């Protein structure tokens, strides 16, 4: 019961308050005297989850029906005749209700357990599978073997496929450089497929996710450019969400042809639009047989807000996120086209404005005449237009080879755009294999030096638990001289990396900050090969630029460096490249597991493969080796060891010791024991040790 307002209780309150304050002061004193001092304990960082992309898991790309012949590229079913300007036909099956199916949600990681054995409780009529056949041909070890191998592989694939009728197995892709194919198998026929003597393994096809967040000078790529090595002649395959090849830093290509009549039409969203907005505008033009709209401008928050193009049946045929000007939608059959603006709960932007509609078609002409992105394929929509409808692949590509306002690691390298991930970043394993297979297959046409995949399954694997599903296609790439760089994943694991980064012949890449500290999100472990900058990387997105962080951003740095190295030394093998990158990198300590990993250094790697002692002073200097710097005591900062590169870039180059004194300011915090002091801070105070 209450105590009312008696003076006794007021006194009690005052007494207790004073007592508590006394306790507080006592604690302060005791802590200040170190009474509670404890020994350091090992780090236990909070793991902040990666960007949640689970929304991607209930999507499924369309499957081709029947067996057909030839490669997957012959089975393209263009959805809308291509697009104009910045985007084209990218129907995201996630957004297309007609083509959506449920995938088991419990575990999206590929494991060797996902080799299908027991589906007693599975309620699906058809199971998406990846089928690997037993090798019956000699290995593909060089590009001359490709055409012969293709014939043998395809005949072996056809032989197995011929044992199933069209309703039993719905073919999706037949691979060209590895012995296998993918599609949907009727549940009742699965055991028959597994028991086929030519079948090595049957894996369930599952969704993986793109791994999502000033780095060029950090890895000394700009020093390599100064030597005239800019990636010229090298081609990098980007297996991702596609590339915005219309971006000014990625070639500004416009491979579209418009036919028909254009009429003026004015339609605008609210400016700015509001949060949690979801509205659909319908444009109907009686008499039109094909209709497309032209956007004067689209400005929506990248990644979180979307403008969707829908047909009269409300099926989404295209999506835009980010910033675009002067861009056509896809052309769709009929007289009606719908525009839907969907926004999230925070941050608004200008919206969109339509100024024209087209009664006609927009034809994609191919990328063969483009300067930066010279070819590609869309394995999500099964057409030749790999336009990025997500932005991730464009960001990755900019890091590899942007050449404009921004410069990537290898600005003169060319790109092949392989779209295997849909508009929300979901990537089927079968499409990823098909993407790498496509690159392998094109290695005779283009000088492909690297295939880069910023994709992971979110798992944590070591050598014994790593799934083997993509080993064949990665091994083939390796044998063809193509390095395959793969992101280690963003789950913050310190004892394992995700799949397919753990594949033996993949170069797995983790992330560091620009301060050369392990990024908190990066997966590391004994299988991790190298680190590269991946925190807050500014690169291209559709129609603009943005910062993103993740091992996704670290991985293309490595692909870019490989493009540089292969320009200098075209015949260097993927194994040598991996060794060089590992041995010449700056060692970075991971306090989570006590392991040290190399952060790539393009100039040091180049020097290693070149047998040239030095290309520039920085090859000789102390910039990269903290321990070799020294100063004298008593705060007299002189006699720094400064090495000079003599005859740079030639076989007679050598480093010499210069005695030229450096300025006092070189030791920012003073000198101790012959070295510069290091500044170390806890929350409240900084120490100079």
């Amino acid at each position, binding site marked *: 019961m209450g105590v009312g307002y008696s003076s006794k209780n007021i006194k009690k309150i005052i007494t207790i308050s004073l007592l508590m304050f006394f306790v507080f002061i006592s604690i302060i004193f005791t*802590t200040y005297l170190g009474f509670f001092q404890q020994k350091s304990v090992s780090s236990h960082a*909070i793991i902040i989850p990666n960007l949640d992309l689970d929304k991607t898991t209930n999507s499924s790309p369309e499957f081709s029906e029947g067996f057909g012949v030839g490669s997957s590229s012959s089975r393209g079913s263009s959805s809308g005749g291509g697009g104009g300007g910045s985007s084209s036909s990218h129907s995201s099956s996630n957004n297309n209700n007609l083509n959506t199916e449920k995938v088991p949600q419990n575990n999206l990681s590929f494991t060797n357990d996902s080799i299908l054995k027991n589906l007693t409780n599975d309620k699906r009529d058809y199971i998406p599978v990846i089928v690997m056949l037993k090798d019956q041909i000699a290995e593909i070890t060089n590009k001359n073997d490709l055409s012969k191998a293709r014939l043998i592989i395809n005949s072996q694939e056809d032989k197995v496929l011929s044992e199933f009728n069209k309703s039993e197995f719905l073919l999706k892709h037949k691979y060209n450089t590895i012995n296998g194919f993918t599609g949907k198998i009727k549940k009742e026929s699965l055991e028959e497929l597994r028991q086929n003597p030519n079948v090595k393994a049957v894996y369930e096809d599952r969704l993986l996710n793109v791994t999502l967040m000033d780095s060029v000078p950090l890895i000394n790529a700009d020093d390599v450019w100064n030597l005239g090595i800019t990636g010229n002649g090298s081609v990098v395959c980007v297996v991702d969400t596609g590339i915005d090849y219309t971006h000014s830093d990625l070639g500004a290509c416009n491979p579209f042809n418009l036919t028909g009549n254009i009429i003026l039409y004015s339609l605008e969203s609210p400016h700015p639009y509001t949060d949690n907005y979801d509205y659909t505008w319908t444009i109907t033009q009686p008499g039109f047989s094909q209709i497309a709209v032209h956007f004067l401008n689209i400005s929506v928050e990248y990644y979180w807000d979307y403008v969707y193009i829908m047909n009269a049946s409300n099926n989404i045929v295209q999506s835009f996120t980010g910033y675009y000007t002067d861009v056509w939608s896809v052309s769709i059959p009929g007289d009606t086209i719908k525009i839907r603006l969907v926004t999230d709960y925070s941050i608004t932007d200008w919206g969109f404005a339509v100024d024209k509609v087209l009664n006609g078609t927009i034809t994609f002409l191919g990328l063969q005449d483009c300067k930066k992105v010279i070819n590609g394929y869309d394995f999500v929509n099964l057409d030749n237009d790999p336009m990025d409808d997500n932005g991730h692949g464009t960001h990755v590509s900019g890091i590899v080879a942007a050449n404009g306002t921004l410069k990537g690691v290898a600005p003169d390298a060319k790109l092949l755009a392989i779209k295997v991930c849909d508009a929300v970043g979901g990537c089927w394993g079968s499409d990823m294999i098909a993407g790498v297979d496509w690159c392998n297959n094109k290695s005779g046409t283009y000088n492909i030096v690297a295939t880069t995949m910023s994709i992971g399954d979110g798992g944590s694997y070591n050598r014994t638990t790593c799934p083997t599903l993509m080993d064949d296609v990665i091994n083939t790439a390796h044998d063809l001289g193509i390095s395959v760089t793969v992101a280690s994943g963003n789950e913050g694991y310190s004892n394992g990396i995700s799949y397919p980064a753990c594949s033996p012949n993949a170069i797995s890449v983790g992330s560091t900050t620009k301060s050369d500290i392990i990024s908190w999100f990066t997966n590391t472990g004994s299988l991790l090969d190298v680190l590269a900058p991946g925190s807050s990387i500014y690169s291209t997105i559709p129609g603009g630029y943005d910062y993103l962080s993740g091992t996704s951003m670290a991985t293309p740095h490595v692909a870019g460096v490989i493009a540089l190295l292969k320009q200098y030394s075209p015949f260097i093998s993927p194994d040598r490249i991996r060794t060089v990158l590992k041995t010449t990198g700056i060692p970075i300590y991971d306090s989570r597991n006590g392991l040290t990993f190399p952060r790539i250094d393009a100039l040091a790697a180049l020097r290693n493969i070149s047998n040239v002692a030095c290309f520039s002073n920085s090859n000789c200097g102390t910039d990269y080796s903290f321990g070799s710097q020294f100063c004298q005591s008593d705060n007299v900062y002189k006699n720094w060891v400064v090495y000079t590169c003599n005859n740079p870039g030639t076989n007679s180059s050598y480093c010499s010791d210069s005695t030229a004194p450096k300025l006092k300011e070189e030791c920012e915090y003073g000198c101790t024991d012959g070295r510069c002091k290091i500044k170390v801070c806890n929350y409240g105070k900084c120490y100079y040790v």
Partner: protein
Amino acid sequence: MKKLESIIKKGKIIALAGIASLAIGCASLKHYVEPRVGAIVPVAEKEQDYKPSLLIGGAYGFNAGKIGFETSLDYFHSSGEYIQTDSILPRFNVSYSPLKQTAKVKPYIIAGANLLSEFSAIDIPEFDVHDKVSNTTLGVEAGIGATILDRINSRLVCTWLPTSENVKNMFTLMLGYRLYLDQN
């Protein structure tokens, strides 16, 4: 000197009067102890990156109607490049519930002072540097919270460390469970 003593005396009187006036209107005294966990997120870092850290701690306090007094002690561990730090954070807080309270949810605002005591081990293997240092930083804090079902206490506190050389602000998110000692 006499003027100063007079001012101090007046200050004491005002402080006591303030506490007394806050107590007027109180219904009952509810003493509690509260074990709690949470996360501490440093912001406005100037010199060195720190990740969020887990926090554990305990509090003793009492409520007198809309007013509450609390003293607490929290512990957390943080690690940066070359440095591992164990920190304890004693706090003294006063809370007030300006809003309408229900039986299920009792929101409140809180303000107070704290003293961040850090015990750090510096290890730079390259130079064989191994050192132990400690320092204490005074902070003031304010925040919001709510008790749910009179037991579960959640709180978000922003701490300002005006004299810090590195972390100027930090947020603490805590979740505790109150165990009442008595109820007069």
